[in-house]
């Protein structure tokens, strides 16, 4: 077997390569400059009855897989699961995860989905794909053959290769162990419910969920542990963590010469901590071991979803680009009938439809449309660059398009991807314009439009729009009153003067439940300004 002809297999053969690459910038190892030549063209296209069969799915999958390999798409092995509409609703309710611990909020999600679906307000998604190894894609029973082909190309090759290739996923998630971890989480929560009662566990989970978005390490890099190690360490951790915490809170008077007491002016933690759940797990004094473990579970799962929240445009755009490219290639080579083409193209156009601002259907930028257009644009810049492109993208214009595209997919997140690759041409095509909305002014200001003066500003504004740091409030653990009432102080640093929504007080109550003592939330307007107290919640009643 000639490795250069089968780049996907070649790369997977040496799994240790993966780690090496993950460390530095991910290289486009084995990505061909352009589509590799096809083996043979079919005598007649694949049959296209509207009802699919397992045999047909396999045949469609085989040609899609072969074509994806010729494009150098590197994926986890695929596991396609055929499910019914009810099961799809189940999957929806548990945020797409195949297993999960029990909680009422998922029940609420399920009921809402079910109701909307039954009333016909909403069609179900055609697919759900899970970032696991093997990569699980759900095919809905109701789909036609053409739609199954679309889903396979979109999920099993588009999303799948994104999960495997993008640096955020490589850094933050371990596709191989996630299912095991979820099973562990489900069993652990069930055990806790048995031991401590459903209500107690439910309240605890409520509180953890309230802080889940702040239970993410934004700056550190996680260490990877196997499930077995994770489980073994849990036992030790439970015993040890309790000691550690107690050490911090020891009430014995300090002996002047032996114990070095904490100086009064020194804050704890010394540096502000962004991961609230982590801080609570490690430092809250009164938690039972099972409570700590649940905090950890919620935190780990939030962390697992963190890359998805940061790569919506890139991920959906990538999958959409590839189902479009793969299926078109198949058609050109004679695999698909016109009927299949018409059918998936109709869904495709629905998916990437972008109503203009002011239209009654407009609800912000469609991530599918933006992502798809950007990848198409990158291909265009590589293949037929204009003078403008050469000025804006000197490194990329005119180079082979597949490596450039893979590079763009692997090494960025939404924010930097847009900051790097949004071209003036696309801004003109989408007729983008930026609005400056200052709540203190009576009118909105159009700050930039798609013209020579506006390109850079537009690109920067749009890039910031996808910055999680700008979308979600910046709240960090600032201090704990070690010598007094153990009150926890959180500090909110507003972004562009945006205040917190009213829910903050409710969330603070949940925080107090987790912490076990009083919690204060303060906000700092400018750099040198004194903090202003927003809310204070007393210690929860024992």
């Amino acid at each position: 077997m000639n490795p250069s002809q089968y780049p996907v297999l070649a790369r997977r053969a040496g799994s240790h390569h993966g780690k090496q690459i993950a460390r530095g910038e991910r290289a486009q190892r084995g990505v061909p400059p352009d589509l590799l030549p096809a083996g043979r063209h079919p005598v007649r296209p694949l049959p296209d009855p509207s009802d699919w069969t397992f045999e047909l799915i396999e045949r469609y999958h085989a040609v899609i897989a072969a074509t994806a390999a010729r494009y150098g798409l590197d994926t986890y092995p695929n596991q396609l699961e055929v499910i019914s509409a009810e099961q799809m609703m189940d999957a929806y309710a548990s945020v797409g995860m195949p297993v999960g611990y029990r909680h009422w909020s998922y029940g609420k999600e399920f009921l809402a989905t079910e109701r909307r679906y039954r009333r016909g307000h909403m069609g179900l998604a055609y697919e759900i794909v899970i970032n696991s190894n093997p990569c699980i894609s759900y095919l809905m029973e109701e789909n036609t053959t053409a739609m199954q082909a679309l889903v396979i190309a979109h999920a099993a090759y588009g999303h799948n290769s994104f999960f495997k290739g993008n640096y955020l996923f490589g850094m933050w998630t371990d596709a191989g162990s996630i299912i095991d971890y979820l099973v562990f989480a489900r069993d652990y929560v069930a055990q806790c419910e048995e031991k401590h009662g459903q209500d107690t566990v439910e309240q605890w989970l409520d509180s953890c969920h309230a802080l889940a978005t702040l239970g993410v390490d934004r700056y550190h890099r996680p260490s990877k542990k196997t499930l077995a190690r994770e489980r073994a360490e849990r036992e030790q951790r439970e015993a040890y963590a309790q000691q550690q915490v107690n050490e911090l809170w020891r009430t014995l008077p300090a002996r002047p010469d032996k114990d070095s007491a904490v100086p009064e002016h020194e804050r704890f933690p010394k540096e502000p901590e962004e991961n609230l759940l982590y801080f609570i797990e490690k430092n809250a004094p009164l938690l039972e071991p099972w409570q700590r473990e649940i905090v950890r579970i919620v935190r780990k799962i939030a962390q697992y979803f963190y890359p998805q929240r940061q790569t919506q445009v890139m991920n959906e755009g990538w999958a959409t680009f590839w189902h479009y490219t793969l299926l078109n290639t198949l058609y050109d080579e004679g695999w698909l009938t016109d009927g299949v083409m018409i059918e998936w193209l109709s869904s495709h156009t629905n998916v990437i439809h972008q109503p203009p601002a002011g239209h009654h259907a407009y609800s912000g930028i469609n991530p599918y449309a933006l992502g798809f257009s950007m990848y198409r644009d990158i291909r265009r810049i590589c293949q037929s660059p204009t003078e403008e492109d050469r000025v804006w993208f000197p490194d990329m214009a005119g180079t082979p398009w597949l490596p450039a595209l893979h590079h763009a997919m692997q090494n960025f997140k939404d924010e930097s991807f847009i900051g790097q690759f949004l071209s003036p041409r696309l801004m003109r095509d989408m007729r983008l314009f930026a609005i400056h909305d200052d709540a203190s002014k009576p009118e909105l200001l159009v700050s930039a439009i798609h013209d020579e003066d506006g390109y850079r500003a537009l690109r920067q504004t749009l890039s910031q729009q996808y910055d999680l740091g700008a979308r979600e409030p910046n709240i960090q653990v600032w201090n704990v009153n070690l010598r007094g009432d153990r009150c926890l102080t959180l500090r909110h640093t507003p972004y562009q003067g945006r205040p917190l929504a009213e829910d903050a007080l409710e969330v603070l109550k949940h925080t107090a439940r987790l912490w076990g003592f009083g919690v204060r939330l303060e906000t700092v307007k400018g750099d040198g300004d004194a903090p202003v107290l927003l809310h204070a919640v007393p210690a929860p009643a024992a």
Partner: protein
Amino acid sequence: MALQIIDRRLSGKNKSVGNRERFVRRYKQQIAEAVHRAISGRDIRHIEQAESITIPRKDIREPVFHHGPGGIRDTVHPGNSEHVRGDRIARPPGGAGGSGAQASDNGEAEDDFSFTLTKEEFMELFFEDLALPRLLRTHLGHTLQYKTRRAGYSHDGTPHNLALLRTMRGALGRRIALTKAPHRELQALQDALDALLAQDDGTSEAVAALRQCIDALTARIRKVAFLEPLDLRFRNRTKVPVPSSQAVMFCVMDVSGSMDQARKDLAKRFFILLYLFLTRHYEKIDIVFIRHHTQAAEVGEDEFFHSTESGGTVVSSALVLLEQIIRMRYPVADWNIYVAQASDGDNFASDGDNCRHLLAGSILPLVRYFAYVQVVPDEQNLWREYSQLAPLFSHFAMRKVSAPADIYPVFRDLFKKEGVSA
């Protein structure tokens, strides 16, 4: 490329059932209220149906930190048709339109959250915390209920009950018992043979004889079967009778001329609730329907609810019949006996006293619980008579119902579980 296709359609679709249960449990208060509201307005025939429940959205919100309105926002939108840089646009009302992205981010519709309770869940809530009072399960009724229990091992049985370990252990024991002595003998012969061979060339007669003996012994050992029918052991189960809580409910309804359509409807609603409750919660229960005007008759379920016969009122006729049936068919020692009576209380004047004596003297001592429901608000003859009994017998209860909406609360009140407030 590795591929696995799995057909999951047949593996349970109700993965969310546990989550749904938790949701219903958490909002039980609100849901129960909605159920009570729904039931009072419902047509009696449709009582056993699913119900759509609505909960205010604010009650089920999960709070998280997010940005509120205010501050500075820079947003990018597609589809510019008329603006140039520096244009000023009037702020669209409600922050929608121009800043559409925000509207969809956190502008969840604030309408109420509604969903449909299944029929099962609905009935569950409907009859929650209700039970027949003082139900005893102390005796073995004649409709025996059995429980199977393990009872050692037996020599025969069906293959799926085969106790493998026990069987193999027996077989091993048998094999050892049957081959131990021959083995010992064989060993001795073998030793003798070896000794002979050491000084012989192996052709003498003694050697041949020994060899023959050894062969015979080996053949004998080999004949011992590894497993024989004798070894088989099967797990044995026996049936043990368990005490059952037999109960009988007498439904006594007044269909006299004074019961107009509205009153009859009230009484029937009450009995339908009772009927649903009993059939749903108790697998083994007899229900006896008695209908009376001047004469009482035991009738079938269908006739009880749908017949239109009418006449004057002699309540005692029903009580006499009730007592007769109890004495004939439901011995007190074996049965938990309950009576529910509904009437407008407008009894034949001299009969009231009679009724009271019948009840106090012969019926109340036999029954576990007697519930009387009067379907008119004012106090009638029978009510006054019965009121004298109430303080004397703790298992005698009486309530008044004047509108369909009252029925459910009264019903709950009469049959609430001990220790639960209605």
